[in-house]
């Protein structure tokens, strides 16, 4: 029996002490984004239509004894959408001031959560009072109503120009929705940061609309 010559350099050998396991932890703080709960990691909230093929539900509004809504499930807002760019949230006053811009339109931001516990806001477009109702918008509003107290998923029917929905056989009681403790206003705050809110005429979005690009 001969030992390899390399053993000359090996002894004495220094190895880790298993009882000091805590000191050997590899820093994985960069992975925390994957391990946090949905609520913790959702510092940014998606503001888009619930993904296809995913069941979601909308919370029921809570009202006080006088019938006044104390916990709304949606908010009426004005959005400025530039195709190919980001969407901005406008204050009613500034939206009113620029009402001639057709890229500004009212929308209902509806709170929802998917069966996979992903919480978001669905911007349901509202039709201007002086225009014929758009069938996509009408069907979307109907699905919002159907999603209160039930799990539904959206199916786009391009041929009919509207959405239809499918209701899950799993009830809300069987599969409880995992809404976070945040209010709808907290979610809107998370979805539109300061740079995506337009309070006055000094915002760069007006320059883009006037000149084609920001300075």
């Amino acid at each position: 029996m001969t030992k390899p010559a390399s053993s000359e350099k090996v002894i004495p050998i220094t190895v880790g002490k298993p009882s000091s396991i805590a000191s050997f932890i590899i820093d994985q703080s960069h992975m925390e984004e994957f391990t946090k709960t949905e609520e913790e990691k959702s510092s940014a909230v998606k503001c888009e239509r619930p993904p296809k093929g995913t069941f979601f539900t909308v919370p029921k509004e809570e009202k006080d004894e006088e019938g006044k809504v104390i916990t709304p499930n949606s908010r009426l807002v004005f959005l400025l959408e530039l195709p190919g760019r980001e969407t901005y949230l406008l204050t009613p006053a500034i939206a009113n001031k620029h009402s001639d811009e057709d890229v500004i339109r009212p929308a209902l931001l509806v709170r929802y959560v998917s069966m996979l516990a992903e919480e978001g806001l669905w911007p349901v477009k509202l039709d201007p009072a002086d225009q014929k109702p758009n069938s996509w918008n009408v069907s979307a509003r109907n699905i919002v109503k159907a999603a209160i107290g039930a799990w539904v998923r959206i199916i786009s029917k391009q041929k009919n120009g509207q959405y239809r929905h499918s209701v899950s056989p799993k009830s809300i009681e069987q599969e409880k929705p995992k809404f976070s403790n945040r209010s709808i206003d907290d979610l809107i705050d998370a979805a539109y940061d300061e740079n995506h809110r337009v309070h006055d005429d000094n915002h760069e979005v007006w320059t883009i609309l006037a000149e084609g690009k920001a300075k």
Partner: protein
Amino acid sequence: MSSDREIVCSRIVFPDSEFDAKKGRGEIPGFPICNCAIEIDENNQIIKHRLRAPYPQRPPWDRGTQYLTVGFALGAEAGSFMHAFPNWLFPIPAIDLYAEYLVIHNSEMVKAAGGGSKQPGPSLIQACRRYGVPTLDPDYKEAMRELAFSKTDHTPEEITKLEDYCLDDDCASTLRLFFKMLPYLDLLRAPIRGAFMMEIERIRWRGKPIDTVLYQETKQYTPLILPKMREDLNRKLGAEVYFAGVFERRMMLRLMRQHNIPIPIDPKTGNESCATKLIKSMIETYPLLKDFYEDKRMIDAIKNLKLEIGSDGRNRCWLNPFGTKTGRNNPSTNRELLGLPHTMRSFMKPGPGMAIA
């Protein structure tokens, strides 16, 4: 000098033992016929240790100065230590080259298995070949294993033969493999894995108490239960995914299409598949798949029920440490109780006065 987090070892010991593993029988492994070790001492000299029953209180290499234990699948040695030196604590620090191999070659083993799972761990011969380490003739190895397993009343000559084999084959191969793998070892963390490999054997020895009456009844009535479970699943899905007792994969795929459920592609074959392991991540989105997943797993589990239960009514099975691509235990899904669907855990029944196991 050793620090708070490091230990300096002046010797290295490569132990190995010969015993009947009683594989697949749910029994505690047999008493070691011999416990041997090759030691590289402080002076870089080789010492060969040969031990046979009656064993001393502690092995002769444990003589005060700090040493490093190195083995291949140290769980087996941990079992022999528990038999031969019942009052002796497991050696610390210890490095298990089997565990280190699984860690070092994780990506390669996952890729070879198709990406979804991980290849089984290597034997000592396979690991040696991977690192270009010469090993003894496999036929000779098999003959020696046969000698160890086939009887309990070995003659002194036979024990000497087994000691020679133990030292010159397994201990020597492990020593050579260690020096080949050394540049790739994370020496700070390897002893944590080594300690785990030995402690997990203690857990396996303990086993889990099984309600053997219920288990035998289940086995007995399986031919009656299975058709009912299949019919039940057909009813839930509204389609005959089981026809004449045979699972109709095409019918299930058609059902998924009808419900606009995306069909996963098996990474191994490139074909559409409704295998439970592939649809697992989809069951919370599609309630129909959840029903299918739960019932199909249950039907398959009952059909292939093979719990390894020892004569003392306890389930003991190879826990396959570091067996998944994420480094978790990966025991058999039909031989190990905790590998079965959750609903079948009621086969575990604590004895009188015991809370669980």
